[in-house]
């Protein structure tokens, strides 16, 4: 298991949550905060092992809830579902295609808040839901679609930079080696 990749993804989730809390510009301009966590979970689901995906999902959701008025664990089911579905069908997803990345990011960013809201409502909480929620989900989907390629590129770049380079297969074949005799 590549622990460096795991650490980088967890660090990414941590920074994503912090930026969402401290960076107020999207909320001031659009009335909506952009959420990068679903894109990161999609990336982890596509490229990482189960343990990494589980860690990123659990820690990301817990950090998100710790800075929010959500009950602790409130955003976890949505991310579990998202990561699980992507992990299940990752062999069928063309992950290098830009359009696919955008579609995945958009769908994940739109569905995560929806599932979380349903979960909170089913627990008896009363989050702010109304017609303006449609606008919020729309903006989140659009921002997720735009952010997904950037998230994918950054994660791959960091993973390449900090990992050992893959050893290329040598062209040397021992069965074709010339054995020199005495003559």
């Amino acid at each position, binding site marked *: 298991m590549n622990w460096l990749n795991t650490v980088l993804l967890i660090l990414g989730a*941590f920074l994503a*949550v*912090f930026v*969402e*809390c*401290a960076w*107020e510009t999207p*909320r*001031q301009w659009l*009335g*909506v*905060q952009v*959420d990068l966590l679903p894109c990161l979970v999609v990336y982890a689901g596509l490229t990482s*092992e*189960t*343990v990494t*995906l*589980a860690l990123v*999902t*659990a820690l990301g959701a*817990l*950090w*998100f*809830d*710790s*800075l*929010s*008025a*959500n*009950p*602790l*664990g*409130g*955003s*976890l*089911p949505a991310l*579990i579902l998202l990561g*699980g579905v992507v*992990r299940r069908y990752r062999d069928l997803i063309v992950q290098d295609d830009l359009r696919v990345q955008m579609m995945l990011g958009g769908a994940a960013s739109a569905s995560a*808040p929806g599932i*979380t*809201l349903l979960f*909170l409502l089913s*627990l008896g909480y*009363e*989050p*702010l*839901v*109304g*017609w*303006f*929620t449609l*606008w*919020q989900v729309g903006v*989140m989907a659009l921002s997720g679609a735009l952010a997904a390629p950037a998230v994918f590129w950054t994660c791959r770049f960091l993973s390449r930079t900090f990992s050992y380079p893959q050893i290329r297969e040598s062209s040397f074949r021992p069965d074709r080696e010339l054995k020199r005799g005495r003559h």
Partner: protein
Amino acid sequence: MLKRPRLIALTILILLVLVLVSLPSRKAAQLKLAMGGFFLPLFGLTSSLRLAGGQAANAVVPRKVLLTQIEQLQRENQSLRFRGQQADELLQENDRLRQYLGIQKQTLWKLKLVRVIGRDPANWWRSVLIDAGSRDGLRPNLPVMVNEGLVGRLGVVGLGQSQVLLVGDPGCLVASLIQDGNLRDHGMLAPGDSLDPRILNLTHLSRNSALKPGQKVVTSGLGGLFPRGIVIGEVVDSRPAEYGLSTEARVKLAANLNHLEEVWVLLLP
């Protein structure tokens, strides 16, 4: 079918959700504070950077502008001193009259200035984080305000960091009063259905309320959380509600909740 490691991970995560959701609220709040503690160094760093940025910006302000501002502030200070003296006199008179009538003495508000360090990352709650906690004398439910008016109340209070539930959050309902001449109509300030966080609904007003746009809305003091008389905002418009049994008004908040940098916490006895 699911492979074994995936099944184990899924089971662990589902168990985690079940355990967290069923935790008692006090334990959950403590756990939340512990998880939020990971962000303290980053919040500290951001605050320091903002401070350094502000100082750097101050360093390039021309001397002439500063002198003009000092002069203006000195004049304002003098005028406020006179008003303060007058207010002291009135307060003493008020205390004497209250004593004669046997009404409990009014206590002066003690305020603590705190800095807003972050905002709720979820779009379905309205809350902010401040850089003060129980070590600064804060405790849950204390009112929070800015110079313009009410902002909200304290929610979860940590050692050096607290959550403020803003007015308009479902967890922060405010007993309110419309104050206009002889009109004294009580209502409940509840979340609005507008994208603008400054527009809220004032519900449970009496059916025959003579509401007009621009009427002032203040806290009524009922409910025990907010003292009477804190400015909330003004009436925008009104409509009959609950099949004409009551009236509902839209209220524009006096405080701009989108641009909160520093807020006052009211330290009630």
